[in-house]
């Protein structure tokens, strides 16, 4: 066994009201090391969770700006390869290049958004971890609270009081 020895309490809720009540109580008790599972995102309940935002949008913005720059660079660079004045006009035409610049803004921005989303959410073709309960894809909500072993009984009681249908403990597992 490597790393810190930690225990975990896994609770399953049948309705969203008790799930939210449990999150509120856990926040009040100062228990912040938890993993929640739900059938949808439930952004309204994020206020009780330690991590709320995501840097995905910054990746999108940076990639979109890079795409725009790439589009204009490609158009202008290819025009300047043959810098001949035809009809008294400069070979670089800004207006038509806006179309290419715009499309590459969207393309690079979109591809980078998906890549960032997959990387940050750690999505990869693998089996779900052991704490995963398939019922959370249907109509159940789950909270896994990571705590010290001596806190197990208190956390167990807190979750049951909030309305958990099931509570089970995992003592001294490898914290991944």
């Amino acid at each position, binding site marked *: 066994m490597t790393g810190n020895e930690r225990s975990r309490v896994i609770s399953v809720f049948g309705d969203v009201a008790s799930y939210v009540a449990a999150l509120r109580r856990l926040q009040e008790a100062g228990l912040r090391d938890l993993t929640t599972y739900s059938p949808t995102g439930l952004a309204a309940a994020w206020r009780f969770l330690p991590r709320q935002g995501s840097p*995905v949008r910054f990746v*999108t913005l940076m990639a979109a700006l890079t795409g725009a720059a790439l589009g204009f660079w490609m158009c202008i660079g290819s025009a300047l390869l043959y810098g001949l004045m035809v009809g008294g006009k400069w070979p670089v035409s800004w207006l*038509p290049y806006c*179309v*290419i610049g715009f*499309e590459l803004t*969207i*393309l690079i921005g979109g591809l980078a958004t998906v890549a*960032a989303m997959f990387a940050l959410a750690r999505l990869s073709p693998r089996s779900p971890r052991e704490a995963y309960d398939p019922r959370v894809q*249907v109509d159940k909500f789950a909270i896994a609270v990571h705590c010290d072993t001596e806190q197990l009984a208190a956390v167990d009681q807190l979750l049951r009081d909030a309305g958990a249908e099931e509570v089970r403990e995992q003592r001294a597992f490898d914290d991944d």
Partner: protein
Amino acid sequence: MSEVALGDYNRDVLRAFLTKPSRAYWIAVGGLLLMIVWGAFCWGYQISRGMGVAGIAHPVGWGVYIVNFVFWIGIGHAGTLISAILYLFRARWRPAVYRSAEAMTVFAVMTAGLFPLIHLGRVWVFWFILPYPNQRHLWPNFKSPLVWDVVAVTTYLAISIIFWYSGMIPDLAAARDSATGRRRRVYQWLAMGWTGEHDQWRHYLRGYMCLAALATPLVISVHSVVSFDFAMSLLPGWHTTIFAPYFVAGAIHSGLAMVILLLIPARSLLNLKHIIQVRHLEQAALLMILTGAILGYAYAIEPFLAWYSGDVFERQFSAWRAFGPYAWAYWGTIVCNVAAPAFFGFRWARTRLLPLFVISLLVIVGMWLERFVIIVDSLAHDFIPHNWGLYHPTWVEISITTAALCWFLFWFFLYSKHLPFVSIAESKESRLEEAVEAAL
């Protein structure tokens, strides 16, 4: 939709595609495949014999292949409208229909993408238009609308695919948990280890929002760029500033009609009537009243501007379009695209399946005719009388056009029995968000 329990979404949507397809389904797929093979044969025949086997000839160099290209790109627009724009506006009726509309977009753009290749003749040199670094420093002309078109359509296809797939990930996880055997392994791979953890949801929802924000201007831009193929030229009937909004409105109009046409049989065949309800189709029909009205304005303003401009070429062309040999297509366009969807103003027409289906079918026909009128009429009747001529599609063009429709339906049939037809996660979202707000 409040009568549907949360678990019922999983049970019914998963049952629709995890159960073994019937023999009738495979017969239909086989029939479509047969037509695709026939279309491929016709394309091969055209390649081996030359473009002379198609009806396109001077002065009409762009025939039904380009008509089909514009038509199918347009069909794809409703999917992105419903999935991206209505997502940003939080439209409540969106979750029931957006997944199939997105699938329709992907397959429609795949279909549209074939036609420039078919029209090209020497298809093996298609890569000449792609920008890639090369030793001779030869690049495509980035000032050409045809190059804009390639970039715009490629971007649209790429963004549509990733938007469609991203939206499906939570539902693929539900499919992974319910499927068995080989299908389970496939869904496990596609679900990318999705568990519904908070850390996954927060990155996922932010990313999905960003994709929607990127796709929204894209849907406006793509058909605008397609319209520039025509509007940047000097031909009467093409050289007009109204084309971009006119094309976008028409694209959404035809896309919404196709959504209704596909969903009416699909909701029955997949036993999803309680999830995809008539009121969802009604919302699409209401949107079509708006897009039909925009088209009606465009159809009216074109001859008005021809008259008001005092331009003799525009005036003669406008009169020829309305009363010349292709007048049937011109008036058919107006009847199908403006008059028919106006009936959706009556409640009975948008809440009963038969009028919904018939009017949507008329709109599809009307939108194809509109593209025929725009493309063929202008080329057939330009500035110089001795340059005028008529165009008639040959059996090769008609076969390839029919096969393209079968190609589109083939992919949609496969999708309907192999991937979640309705978004399970998002169907639950609005109800659960309301419950969270109530609990706070």
